């Protein structure tokens, strides 16, 4: 057995069944070994897509995603995928080939310092120098990627190490004295948290991506206390968006109710989130009256931006049940009366007297599926509309690039999700700009006949950039026009062998969406929508949560919140 075969065997022993990748010179021994391996390899058409697919595979299943790439350009193409996974705490293992050991450092053909390049965007990385180290490196990589705060790990293997005869053992034990995540919360801190929560008059819970692995604990906490629940972009699905206690998404494009609740609350239970700037806005105006209880497995996230009054380091699966045990129903009638008034006053609203708009397309998708599907998104206006109008109801079914905001993520993510959750319908909500950043993956989708409905809300614009230029750059629309040179997306889909439809009106949209969802095969729907639609509410970058622009809502808004008309 050579190193390449040992690698595949080690992956197999960690339960890997599916790998996303693209071959090349420096990783050919691994691809040769794949020929005899039970591991299924999904050939993507660009390494970036392989990384995104593996990332989404983890997000959709909780099982570590794996991707392969060759040295140099293959590995550098992974960079965006690794950075995306790193920001969103996704467990991903990337294996790259490298030039033979003797050539490393000589600027050899297709050589790049991959461990150097990926150092700040991986949780850890390895350059394997001895073939017999492979099982230990793979075991450590799985341990590091999937425990504590999950993250991507890269394993770089020179070609001669892949080819060398393996004489080691697979029975290895991890010994990492520098890596011992704190999973069990400190009892005294949990008690302090319980006391603070019991004393609160106007508490809210904010759930982030950490909630995806502990939905039952989140649900139980919410049920027992009756506390209102805000889910961040990464937390969608960790608590059902349709539940009575759900206030929706906070932050820059959050709901009026969630943002007002943050401003007026006297306590936040932050669970599995990192208080990203898109959530907090200007820090000095974030939750000015609130005691912050921050529960997270990553100590470095606690008091990094928002000072935690009661920090609890630990896994939500441990901390939340122990916290819930010490609590009973809270007396929140006045607080709920206020929240319900805001909820009733600010429902999701958009105008349908004009041409088709993105929001109604996305709402039709939500109604046709009941939110019972996997949603992946690209990045931009459609992403924010989807977060608000098409949030899924189950954990690990909402897959979107939050931290890095990676255009080009959604389509390959749909591939990863489709392999992770076979038999389930996957809807990829996209814009006409971002879909073109990994459009080549239509080939992968065609080949495997994945049940993915690709819904492009096509306004012929880079819509989010256009919105900022309209609002903050004196309507100087610089380099945002796509319409004059967009492809005919239906024909493009057909060129790849995928059913495609261009849709111009709401009647056709209403008919074709259920048909596409029922088809259980790839379908691309290109909805041509109103070009100047904006996402509201909006907190301008750097402004406070209380300075939210409510937009199309009724123009009698109080306290610093401004109303604008479009």
């Amino acid at each position: 057995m050579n190193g390449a075969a040992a690698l595949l065997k080690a992956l197999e022993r960690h339960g890997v069944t599916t790998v996303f990748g693209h071959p090349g010179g420096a990783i050919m021994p691994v691809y040769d070994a794949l020929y005899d391996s039970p591991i299924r390899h999904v050939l993507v058409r660009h390494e970036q897509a392989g990384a995104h697919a593996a990332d989404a595979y983890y997000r959709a299943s909780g099982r570590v995603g794996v991707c392969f790439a060759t040295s140099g350009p293959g590995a550098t193409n992974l960079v965006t995928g690794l950075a995306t996974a790193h920001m969103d705490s996704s467990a991903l293992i990337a294996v790259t080939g490298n030039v033979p050991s003797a050539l490393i450092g000589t600027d050899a053909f297709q050589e790049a310092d991959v461990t150097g390049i990926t150092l700040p965007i991986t949780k850890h990385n390895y350059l394997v120098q001895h073939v017999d180290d492979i099982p230990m490196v793979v075991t450590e990589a799985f341990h590091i990627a999937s425990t504590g705060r999950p993250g991507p790990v890269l394993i770089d293997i020179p070609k001669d190490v892949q080819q060398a005869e393996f004489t080691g053992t697979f029975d290895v034990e991890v010994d990492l004295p520098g890596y011992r995540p704190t999973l069990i919360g400190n009892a005294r801190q949990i008690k302090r948290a319980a006391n603070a929560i019991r004393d609160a008059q106007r508490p809210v819970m904010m759930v982030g991506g950490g909630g995806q692995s502990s939905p039952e604990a989140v649900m139980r906490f919410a049920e027992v206390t009756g506390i209102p629940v805000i889910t961040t972009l990464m937390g969608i699905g960790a608590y059902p968006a349709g539940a009575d206690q759900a206030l929706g998404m906070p932050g820059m494009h959050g709901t009026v109710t969630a943002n007002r609740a943050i401003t007026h609350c006297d306590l936040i239970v932050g669970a599995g989130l990192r208080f990203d700037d898109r959530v907090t806005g200007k820090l000095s105006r974030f939750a000015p009256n609130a005691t912050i209880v921050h529960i997270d497995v990553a100590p470095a996230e606690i008091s990094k931006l928002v000072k935690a009054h009661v920090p609890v380091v630990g896994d939500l699966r441990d901390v939340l049940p122990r916290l819930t045990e010490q609590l009973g129903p809270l007396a929140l009638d006045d607080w709920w009366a206020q929240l319900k008034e805001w909820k009733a006053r600010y429902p999701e609203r958009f105008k349908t007297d004009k041409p088709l708009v993105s929001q109604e397309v996305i709402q039709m998708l939500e109604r046709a599926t009941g939110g019972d599907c996997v949603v992946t998104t690209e990045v931009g206006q459609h992403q924010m509309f989807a977060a608000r109008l098409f949030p899924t109801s189950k954990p690990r079914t909402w897959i979107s690039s939050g931290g890095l905001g990676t255009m080009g993520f959604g389509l390959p993510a749909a591939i990863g999700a489709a392999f992770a959750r076979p038999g389930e319908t996957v809807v990829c909500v996209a814009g006409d700009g971002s879909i073109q950043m990994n459009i080549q993956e239509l080939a992968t989708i065609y080949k495997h006949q994945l049940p993915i409905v690709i819904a492009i809300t096509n306004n012929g614009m880079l819509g989010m950039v256009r919105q900022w230029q309209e609002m903050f750059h004196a309507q100087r629309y610089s380099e945002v026009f796509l319409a004059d040179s967009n492809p005919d997306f239906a024909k493009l889909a057909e060129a790849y062998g995928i059913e495609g439809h261009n849709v111009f009106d709401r009647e056709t949209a209403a008919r074709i969406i259920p048909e596409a969802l029922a088809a259980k095969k790839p379908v691309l729907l290109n909805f041509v929508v109103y070009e100047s639609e904006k996402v509201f509410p909006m907190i301008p970058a750097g402004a406070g949560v209380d300075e939210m622009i409510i937009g199309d809502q009724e123009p009698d808004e109080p306290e610093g919140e401004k109303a604008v008309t479009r």
Partner: protein
Amino acid sequence: MSATQAAQVLDVARNHVLSVTVRDRPGVLVRIAALFARRGFNIESLSVAQSETPGMSRTTFVVFGEDAAIEQLQKQLQKLIDVVKVIDHSEGPYVERELMLIKVAVRTPEDRVELRQIAQDFRARIIDVDRHALVFEVTGDEGKTDAFIEQMRSFGILELIRTGRVALPRSAGQRATDTATRAA
């Protein structure tokens, strides 16, 4: 005023001496240096050497910053897989030393006499003697080495090199390589 701002008002920037115990792995210093750079910290001094535990090295960093920023830096350092323990010595009693080699010009016989006298006062050793120069070895805390440099200026400093500070906590109970107390 938010809690964060309030904390910052009370927070004064000062030098912190950090002991970072790391596993001897290829690239471990690069990881630490990259982290300092990425998070916007300047390393005032740095020294690295084997510790008493085989396979572990102890690095000592002197870094300038507010307490809250240094706390965040410590947490970021602890995220590195090869970092076993981080101690901020500024939080408790500790001893520190620095080694300096300094080559000073000798122009006249009187200079030579005076230099020998100063060296005695500082308990510095002369480790090389030349017709036109002396090389001194000075060990001590940063204040002592700084003071010695000041004394030498009028003679003419030809070259100097400093190791950067190394530090250990004073109490027997806290060991810089003790992993049991490490949080996360």
